[in-house]
């Protein structure tokens, strides 16, 4: 067409057929080895995951009876008489509820403040960095350290109303509300990150339109921005819930470790919060050869129920994020998260 690229005209038109791919038989040995290893790893990981799920399902079906889900644990010498795990199941749900109730307002407030108000001014930006970094510190803290922190903290006399006092004056320092407060630290980072990223991804024109209509910043946040990041929040909350459900250390240290839920005191709901109990995770731990029970059948049954719960939550996260991606016009191409 022009003097600069005479060959372009002479070149044949691009073929619509797929180009010839180089076949592995022509490669060097090193590359072939890597190919085989990569395939082996990929298939191997699937095989391992399949083995775990199938084995737990096999043991679960073998040992799980519907009566186990609805009967309470009992002190007994034999497997047959030691009851089911209704209380641990209820304990899991109660603790999740408390954890989310504590984490949600804190995470939302922080995310909103950092995303919307934390931009202007030196002081505000420094404070915003401080808050962001501290939430990253919490995200990176092992749950065992959080549990240990709670163990000593809630034995101070100041926190006696949160658990109870024994005769002799010592604050017990372990109860559902204590464990739930520390669990909220586990759920805080996922909710915070998801909400903050969602708020930052909201295009500027939505805010500008609201301001142009005369709304204040806080009203914009309440009525325009938060509803639009609802699915981000949902993903974050579900991630937080799955972290809470899967955690053992905090419950083991802080929830009193009694097989049954034992309320404390007289007031109707407060006594449950101040009471001690256990969750599915500590039930599994205590019934395994590592704990006191030596009841592997019950441990398998409870582990199967726990796995089903966690996998269900996983599917939920998947569905929410896929719906969100579709609504924003993107497709998840090859990404895992």
């Amino acid at each position, binding site marked *: 067409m022009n003097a600069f690229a005479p060959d372009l005209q002479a070149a044949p038109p691009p073929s619509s057929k797929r180009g010839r791919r180089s076949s592995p038989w022509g490669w060097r040995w090193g590359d072939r080895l890597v190919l085989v290893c990569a395939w082996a790893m990929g298939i191997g990981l699937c095989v391992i995951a399949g083995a775990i799920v199938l084995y737990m399902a096999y043991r679960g079906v073998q040992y799980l009876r519907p009566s186990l889900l609805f009967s309470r644990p009992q002190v007994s010498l034999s497997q047959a008489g030691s009851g089911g795990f209704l209380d641990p199941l209820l304990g899991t749900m109660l603790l999740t509820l408390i954890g989310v109730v504590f984490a949600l307002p804190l995470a939302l407030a922080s995310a909103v403040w950092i995303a919307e108000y934390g931009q202007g001014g030196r002081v505000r930006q420094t404070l915003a960095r401080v808050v962001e970094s501290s939430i990253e510190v919490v995200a990176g803290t092992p749950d065992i350290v959080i549990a240990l922190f709670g163990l000593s903290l809630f034995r101070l006399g100041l926190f006696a109303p949160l658990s109870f006092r*024994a005769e002799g004056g010592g604050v017990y320092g372990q109860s559902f509300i204590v464990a739930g407060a520390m669990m909220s630290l586990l759920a805080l980072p996922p909710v915070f990150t998801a909400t903050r990223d969602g708020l930052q991804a909201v295009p500027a024109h939505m805010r500008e339109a609201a301001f142009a209509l005369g709304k204040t910043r806080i009203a914009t946040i309440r009525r325009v921005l938060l509803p639009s990041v609802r699915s981000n929040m949902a993903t974050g909350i579900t991630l937080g819930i799955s972290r809470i459900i899967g955690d053992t250390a905090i419950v083991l240290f802080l929830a009193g470790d*009694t097989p049954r839920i034992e309320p404390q005191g007289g007031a109707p709901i407060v006594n449950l919060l101040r009471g001690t109990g256990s969750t599915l995770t500590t039930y599994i731990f205590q019934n395994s050869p590592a704990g006191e029970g030596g009841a592997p059948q019950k441990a398998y049954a409870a582990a199967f129920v726990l796995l089903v719960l966690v996998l269900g939550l996983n599917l939920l996260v998947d569905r929410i994020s896929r719906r969100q991606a579709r609504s924003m016009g993107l497709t998840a191409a090859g990404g895992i998260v």
Partner: protein
Amino acid sequence: MNQHRRLRRLSIAAAMGVLGVATAPAAASATALVTISGATSSYPLVSLLAAKYVKLHPHKIRFKIAQGGTGVGIADVKAGSVTIADVASEFTSADAGLDFYPIAKYAICVVTNQANTLSNLTPKQVTSIFTGKTKQWSEVPGATATGPIEVFSRTSVAGVLTSFKSLLLEGKSVESSATEESSEGLMKQAVESHPSSIGFLSNYNANKGGLNSVEFNGVACNQTTAASGQYAGVAVFFEVTKGTASGAAAAFIDWIDKSPAAKKIIASQWVVIG
């Protein structure tokens, strides 16, 4: 008009709040709460005694019994975190300021796996096995297990370990290569699942079934020989308080000491004192 409605709503809410907070401690103080922690070997006995006591005094007392080992119980009661400590070993100089109340006697049995039908060990053999001098089952006459001897011991917080060392091990220590279990339940599981193992348990757990209890110097280890004084390894369970026991704790300990119902429970598997 709005002001009045607001004030009324606020005052109702405040009253309910105060009521709720007030009833909680009021209801709680009706039942005394006694917390206990300590030995895993006396846990079955203390749980039974506590359950019986609660049945006899309904709505007056509640117990929360944890385990952790004698050492943990003593540390807890020294720090004031629990009311009573369950202890399975004797008073030492480190326990100044604590009051020890004996409640029962128990025997410490040497146990092996059920498949290993070893019937008797002399004191010298016991010492030599647990201190690591004898290493193979082939060197122990009467043992049907083969291969190296796997010694299971308890972690240092165990009162049973302290008593075992002073009564049956001539004061020596168990070899440092032994695997240490942190409770009687775990020790029982370990010996049950390893064919060439040997360990020690209180007589209640040793004779529950699933293990081979070994005679010590020709004397079987059970409740009868412990009561008669024939068996050498008899130790005492204590309830320990910081200073003199008072209040609900004192009443409970007193009840264990004097009541025939408590004596009946103790006599079922353990040895009554006095």
